[in-house]
């Protein structure tokens, strides 16, 4: 390897060169996190704490799913509650009409919720993806409200504002939250694996190309519309699963909580906080923010103080971490490495810089 190949040190704008920690660190951190998440309810079996865990898992699945579309392709959707709601209604309607008992069997419906959401997302995505940027954002919100309205109005299916009631599982006490938590964790791991696989696949590179310059991506032969639609359906699939987990957990489905505008924005905010378009961003965002949000909710029993605290928290985060945690930390770390490599370059030969590892990396951490 010659000095000219080691781009980062001498590159015109080094901030465009992404930094990734060594593979051992990345895999070690992932495994450590998984162990922590698996052990968490066993160490703290208090139902109040584990229910925070379940909500965190639901948002984690949704955030990873949302990021597959919005993070990778750059099309920001603030209407993914549409699929959250479809997932909830799918599970609730099948359970009620097939007279299924509450319990383990309902988790079998999660993939169904995902598939129904993904199928519904295809015509919707076809309509939405004709426009870009802010028009796209606003249209996604509008579609979500249309579905909410339908859920209110199609009373024969959804019982309108009366909502649907799910059968409760027979689990009791500390154990009640555990199945939801572990199934949620499993779904989150699957979503994470999908996000990881898409990110490093050729298809994923196509999505990033669309994010960076859609016309040029088209010019390079990427089937732009199809790529976007597939990503949209994939993200709808996971958000639908999140909804499918939520419905039996809370035991009821209401139009305003199924197609919930605050869900949309919460998911977007936590991905932005973690770092949009990154793998670890949605995970970090969900694991930090949702417990905090749930803590506020439990702390301020009445809704209004909670709303104020939640809103102020959002404002502070958006103000203090506009770029997200992951990009912020990695760029600071990379700057440090570059500085150290520069310093070393001055007394040794260029081949010995510590940057060989990431010179060929394409993605961001």
């Amino acid at each position, binding site marked *: 390897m010659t000095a000219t190949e080691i781009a980062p040190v001498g590159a015109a704008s080094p901030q465009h060169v992404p930094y990734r920690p060594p593979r051992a660190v990345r895999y070690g951190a992932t495994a450590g996190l998984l162990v922590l998440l698996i052990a968490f309810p066993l160490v703290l079996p208090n139902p109040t704490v584990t229910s925070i865990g379940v909500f965190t898992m639901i948002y984690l699945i949704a955030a990873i799913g949302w990021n597959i579309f919005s993070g990778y392709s750059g099309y*920001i959707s*603030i209407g993914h509650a549409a699929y959250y709601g479809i997932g909830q209604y799918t599970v609730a309607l099948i359970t009620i009409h097939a007279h299924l008992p509450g319990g383990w069997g309902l988790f079998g419906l999660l993939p169904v919720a995902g598939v129904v959401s993904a199928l519904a997302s295809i015509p919707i995505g076809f*309509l939405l993806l*004709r*426009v*870009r*940027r*802010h*028009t796209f*954002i*606003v*249209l996604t*919100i*509008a579609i979500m*409200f*249309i579905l*909410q*309205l*339908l859920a*209110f*109005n199609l009373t024969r299916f959804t019982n309108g504002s009366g909502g649907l009631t799910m059968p409760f599982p027979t689990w009791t006490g500390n154990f009640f939250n555990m199945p939801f938590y572990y199934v949620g964790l499993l779904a989150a791991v699957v979503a994470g694996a999908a996000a990881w696989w898409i990110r490093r696949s050729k298809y994923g590179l196509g999505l990033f190309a669309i994010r960076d310059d*859609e*016309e040029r991506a088209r010019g390079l032969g990427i089937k732009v519309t199809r790529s976007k639609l597939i990503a949209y359906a994939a993200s709808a699939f996971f958000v639908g699963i999140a909804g499918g987990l939520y419905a039996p957990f809370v035991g009821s489905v209401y139009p*305003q909580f199924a197609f919930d*505008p*605050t869900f949309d*924005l919460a998911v*977007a*905010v936590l991905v*932005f906080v973690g770092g949009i378009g990154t793998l670890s961003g949605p995970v970090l965002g969900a694991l930090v923010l949702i417990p905090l949000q749930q803590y506020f909710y439990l702390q301020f029993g009445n*809704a*209004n*103080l*909670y*709303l*104020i*605290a*939640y*809103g*102020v928290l*959002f*404002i502070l985060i*958006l*103000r203090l971490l*506009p*770029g997200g945690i992951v990009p912020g930390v990695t760029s600071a770390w990379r700057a440090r490495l570059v500085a150290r490599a520069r310093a070393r370059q001055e007394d040794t030969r260029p081949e010995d810089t510590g940057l060989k590892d990431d010179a060929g990396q394409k993605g961001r951490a």
Partner: protein
Amino acid sequence: MLILQAIIDGILIGGFYALMAAGLTLVFGVMEIVNFAQGILVVLGAYLSYALYSHLHIDPFLGLLITLPAMFLVGVVIYWTMIKPIRRDRVIMSLLTMFAVGTVIEGILDLIFTSNLVQTTTSYVNSSVQIGSLIFPEIYLYSFAMAVVLLSALYWLLYRTKFGRNLRAAMQNPTAARMVGIDIDRISAFTLGIGVSLAAAGGMVFGSTNSFDAASSYDLISRLLAIVIFGGFGSLSGALVASIVMLVIEDVVAVVWSPTWGQTTFYLVLILVLLVRPQGLFGRTAVRAQ
């Protein structure tokens, strides 16, 4: 005759929806900000009028002399403290910020006024004028007149004053406008102020004709966004036409079919329009993302 009545109702009610939608679309046109808090700001305006009327016995229309400047200040303050500091991803970050601001306002309103539904019930809210077999509720007549006055004032401001010329320049090309010496920040702060006070004017009527609480804002914002998309984001005339069209469709469907399907029918029309014209009725052609 019922249908004619429904059309007239739709036009009259559409008038004050046009006020709120005009505020939303104007703010978007100037600074590409989707003001997701517009719904709760309408409710804030409604509560201000309600409080003035129920505690100080100030007529809501007269009270606008107090609420409009107050809400203008709210808008200006929101711009300088919340929107101005945003450096990157302005479109999405401003939307999320406005959502957060709206959440805080919702919490505060809920804290002060509780979640009991209230309505500003002035003497003329339930009276109406009858011409032939057509009924004109007085409150709608007054509010329609007010909407015409305020929107005319807005058009005058935009098309007959130096401020309006600067504002339109900022809408067409912010960079070029800045280069010829237009203070974009000042224009933006003023525009948000105007947008928020228009929300307050609409809110006054909303609070007189509906019983409301802080949570009413979600229904409002969904309608307002739909109106603005239908008319074309950033287009003032589009917002006016779309408001009337939406309310007329809603009221006519309510009469000939069922009230629950009025809004849904409008949304279906919206989707059909978008299939043909993704940028909305009066929208500028979607320019390439910068």
